[in-house]
């Protein structure tokens, strides 16, 4: 039933010039691409910029696009190349890339991403310590709240717990974090 929304069929539609399909694909893939992009190079403004360019490029040449079997990994590879080109154009060589995951096509974990974004050495160390002080469950809930932008209601539902419990868990976790970060 959901067949029409599969990335592959969206891709087919884009090749035929269906702009709406491009937007749907963008919407479906945005967060995956941001996360993958951040694991290639942990600069969110640059990554967002590159994702935009990537989709504009796809649209520009939609008529001459090839058939793609795995749209997701195609987009990941394409994004990675866009980021590298971008860095080279800016005079920063690809050697400054973080490349948390050497392997192409895998997204870094939430903790890896937020740690990599902290360029300040002391802050970076403090953040590692702070995350170590939290339970996996706490980190998971923080990720849902701040990274996935879910509501307390959604988080409670996904974790089969009450809204109050979700709220309290997140509240306590942030308090621990900011104390460890000396904020």
């Amino acid at each position, binding site marked *: 039933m959901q067949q029409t929304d599969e990335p592959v069929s969206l891709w087919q539609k884009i090749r035929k010039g269906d702009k709406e399909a491009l937007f749907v694909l963008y919407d479906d893939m*945005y967060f995956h691409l941001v996360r993958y992009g951040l694991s290639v190079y942990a600069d*969110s*403004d640059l990554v967002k910029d590159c994702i935009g360019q990537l989709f504009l490029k796809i649209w520009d040449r939609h008529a001459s696009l090839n058939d793609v079997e795995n749209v997701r990994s195609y987009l990941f590879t394409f994004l990675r190349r866009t980021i590298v080109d971008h860095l080279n154009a800016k005079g920063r060589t690809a050697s400054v890339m973080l490349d948390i995951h050497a392997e192409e096509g895998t997204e870094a974990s939430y903790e890896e991403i937020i740690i990599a974004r902290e360029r300040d050495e002391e802050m970076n160390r403090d953040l590692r310590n702070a995350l170590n002080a939290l339970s996996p469950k706490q980190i998971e809930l923080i990720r849902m709240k701040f990274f996935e932008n879910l509501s307390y209601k959604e988080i409670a539902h996904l974790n089969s717990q009450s809204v109050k419990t979700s709220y309290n868990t997140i*509240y306590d976790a942030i308090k621990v974090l900011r104390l460890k970060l000396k904020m």
Partner: protein
Amino acid sequence: MDFQPPGPEDFLCDESFLRFCGGEYADTLFWNNWVKENPEYAGVVDKALRLYDMLNAGQGNSKEQLAAMKDAIGRREKFQRMLSHDGKAKVVRIKRPWMRYAAAAAVVLLVAGGSMTYLWKKRAATGLLAYEYYTVAKSRKTIVLPDSSVIMLNENSHLSISKDFDSEHREVTITGEAFFDVKHDQEHPFIVHTSEYRIRVLGTSFNVKSYPGSHGTETGLISGKVEIVPNGDDAKDRIILRPNEKFVLERERQPSISNTHSATVAVSKGIVAKIKLDTLTRHAPETAWARRKMEISDETFEQIALKLQDWYGIRVIFASEEVKQYRYTATFNDETIFKALQYLKQSYPFNYRIEQDAIVISRS
């Protein structure tokens, strides 16, 4: 009683504060004001914002990014149509449209003053400091400004609200088409910038049409008084419009003989013309796009709200479950959304409050 002063976690667990972090206008207004009134918490709020940026990994809002991309594609296509019309289609580079949004988010923090230095400094480099609204094909959007002026954006349009817009500094920039209903304030003129001229307004309603690549720019005045000031101005070239007059600036493309690029130069010619009102409704055809005939027969307010939301492009939120169930029967002939709400109110009272991009309905 032991009173604990709020820490960053108290702010970060608040849904409204998180919407502010995400750049939502209504919440931004609220939190900017709040910090102004409670300067002692500026430092804590600053820390909360810093933590938010860290935990969110600076992802931004996918909906806004998507709107920016739609806009970029729309502009690119329009540009390409223009070029291919001239018989020389080429690849056009759009200059980093993505940064607009980063910039829009920066404004949020800038307005709040020196306290929220972190995110603001980080994003200031992108330069553009304004709230941006985009509409794509077949969509429209109603925006209510802090001075309670109302702007309805037609499709494929872009509205930029200057960063320091408030009741004293009222300036916006429009590309595309919009209907303005400006709050009267003799002291503080409302200024609308277009690519060719600016419109100085003292309180009035009017329609502006200024699509890039079209044949010209048109400003039609419905009521009140506006002044058209050419860009790069010269006081003596000003034109004053009276109600039911419109100013039409035509762009004529003339081939330039200068060199091999065979570029065209735009020659502009402005005229003031009468608006021809519809003989039956007395409405100006220029604003027909912003109005709509709507039949409602014994429907709940909740159902009606969906229709209004759909047509006018503004969110309708109910603060009361009870009001949702009110039932109305009505026929609207070409009304703006506010007229429509006024009529409904008369037959079964409720209150409504307007926020930037939402109308909040509550019990009277």
